[in-house]
């Protein structure tokens, strides 16, 4: 079926099938964009990422994911807008062009597809994976407490019924393990960026402990610069700091794992959401949220591009 490039509405929420179709469309429209599968979810849905690469072998790369907490719908929607922005601006925008001429970018727009489908069909407030826990009537693990970074420590629950259940073991969730395996096998990631949404924060490690990372000064300064870029568009204020100082101690998180595995530029974004609507950010705010987030991401990506390590 022929589709025009303008048929997808980035300003509304979509089902997983619609999102996957749009990934196909982006990959067919732009020669440097490829849809790759990095694994399968617990319920055997493919984990699709977009690879943006203009050539070269195993170039240094940036990782970007969204939707690991499935109910945070504005993140999956923003990731799609951002994917389209990157693809369409390559060759015309100097910043994106120079970035992709030097580095690859991998974007996973729906990191928790089972949870995402569940939010569409059964429970709009579902946050976790959908894996079955032996011996428990409760389902699912908080995939952002399941990484091998202070696993099982403070700020994660050992109760399968809790919204922040850490799971039976680190990487027990196939959605987490797939990303871990992919990043380890690639071996040349320089940045790990993850999109969440609630209460406007931009955080860097650590969350499993309340000590500063070795690169504290650089991450703090870069985080502030990114927050300033975000604010420049619509005035949205982001608070910047370590996870532990900014929000609360939380173990088993993805950016702590990335940082401890040598990926210096590891940041988690909590996109705009005052709480007035909970995780139900009105669709009219998708594009503004994506636009301002993109400015923050771009600021970080430019730094990563220019400060090779």
């Amino acid at each position, binding site marked *: 079926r022929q589709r025009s490039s303008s048929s997808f*509405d980035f*300003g*509304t*929420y979509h089902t997983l099938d619609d999102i996957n179709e749009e990934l196909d469309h982006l990959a067919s429209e732009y020669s440097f964009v490829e849809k790759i599968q990095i694994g399968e979810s617990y319920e055997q849905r493919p984990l699709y990422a977009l690879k943006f690469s203009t050539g070269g072998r195993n170039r240094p790369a940036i990782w970007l994911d969204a939707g690991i907490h499935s109910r945070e719908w504005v993140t999956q929607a923003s990731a799609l807008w951002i994917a389209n922005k990157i693809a369409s601006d390559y060759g015309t925008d100097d910043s994106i062009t120079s970035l992709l001429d030097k580095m690859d970018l991998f974007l996973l727009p729906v990191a928790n597809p089972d949870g995402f489908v569940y939010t569409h*069909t*059964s*429970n*709009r*407030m579902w*946050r976790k994976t959908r894996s079955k826990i032996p011996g428990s009537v409760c389902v699912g693990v908080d995939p952002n407490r399941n990484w091998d970074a202070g696993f099982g420590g403070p*700020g994660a629950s050992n*109760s399968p*019924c*809790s*919204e*922040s259940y850490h799971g039976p073991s680190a990487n027990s969730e196939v959605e987490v393990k797939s990303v871990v395996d992919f990043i380890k096998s690639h071996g040349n990631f320089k940045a790990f960026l993850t999109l969440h949404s*609630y*209460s406007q924060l931009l955080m860097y490690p650590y969350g499993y402990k309340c000590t500063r990372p070795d690169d504290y000064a650089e991450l703090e300064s870069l985080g502030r610069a990114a927050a300033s870029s975000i604010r420049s568009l619509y005035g949205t204020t982001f608070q910047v700091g370590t996870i532990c100082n900014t*929000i*609360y*101690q*939380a173990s088993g998180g993805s950016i702590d794992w990335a940082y401890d595995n040598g990926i210096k530029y590891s940041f988690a974004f909590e996109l705009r959401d005052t*709480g*007035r*609507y*909970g*995780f*139900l950010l*009105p*669709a009219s705010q998708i594009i503004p949220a994506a636009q301002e987030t993109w400015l923050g991401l771009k600021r970080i990506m430019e730094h990563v591009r220019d400060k090779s390590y």
Partner: protein
Amino acid sequence: LETFVGHQVLRIKTKNEEEVKQLQLLESLEHLGLDFWINPSAPALPVDVRIPAASVQSVKAFLESQGIAYSILIEDLQDVLDKEKQDMAESAQ
């Protein structure tokens, strides 16, 4: 299909470490079915929590008995969900 009729989201403002500790105790009471959107961590940070309809009275009673300040962020979560569904349907049309 799970519904959220009568579920409220409260924003709780703590004054000191003692109140934070009391909220952390509340967090551990699994039978209440609370869903913390921002967990209790430090007095300066607000706590947002979704409370199932059946637990709303007891949580509010607990907060009031301890003198912990709160406000209602979302009166009825299902109303917001219904509005979202309607907006999506209109948008799809």
